[in-house]
């Protein structure tokens, strides 16, 4: 019973997270400024990472871990590059 509850809750959590990702996509497309899009990408990444955690719970497999850790540890690199690009017109000076 509680396991079934868990299973459906996880799916619900996933749907919530996916909706969250959807909001980010809306922001990505709508803008209006480039920084909004970059922020949306960052949010998208974070939500995706949390989604990976739920996938891990749902499948019982710990194999999601590397991907999630990569997002946590290195996902900021591309956003950092975007923001430097927006500010300086250059990523590396």
């Amino acid at each position: 019973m509680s396991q079934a509850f868990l299973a459906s809750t996880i799916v619900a959590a996933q749907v919530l997270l996916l909706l969250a990702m959807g909001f980010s996509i809306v922001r990505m497309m709508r803008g209006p400024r480039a920084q909004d899009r970059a922020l949306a990408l960052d949010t998208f990444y974070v939500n995706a990472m949390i989604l990976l955690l739920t996938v891990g719970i749902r499948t019982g497999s710990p194999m999601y871990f590397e991907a999630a850790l990569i997002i946590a540890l290195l996902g900021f690199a591309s956003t950092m590059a975007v923001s430097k690009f927006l500010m300086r017109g250059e990523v590396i000076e």
Partner: protein
Amino acid sequence: MELILAMAIGVLTASGVWLLLRPRTFQVIIGLTLVSYAVNLFIFSTGGLRTGADPVLREIAGNIAQYTDPLPQALVLTAIVIGFATTALFLVVLLTSRGLAGNDHVDGKDGTP
């Protein structure tokens, strides 16, 4: 699963192909990226879709029913690396071309939109 992934592959391919046929170099590189996503998923899908069954052995040997098909995954990995390399190259070539031709049209001539 299969239907969703197939449709996803279709959408990625369609978007990518449409961009491939555009006249601006940046559109082409984005198109190539999208198409390569689609192709990677395609290769991956040839092994059949499984959830919760990893290609990492728990015992010393496994059978295919218990694990996912590792071979397509290995192929996709190779394809990802090669795709990364060629995207980088194409990027630099399009930058160089833009520098030499003075515009970002794929044919190095401006005028057509």
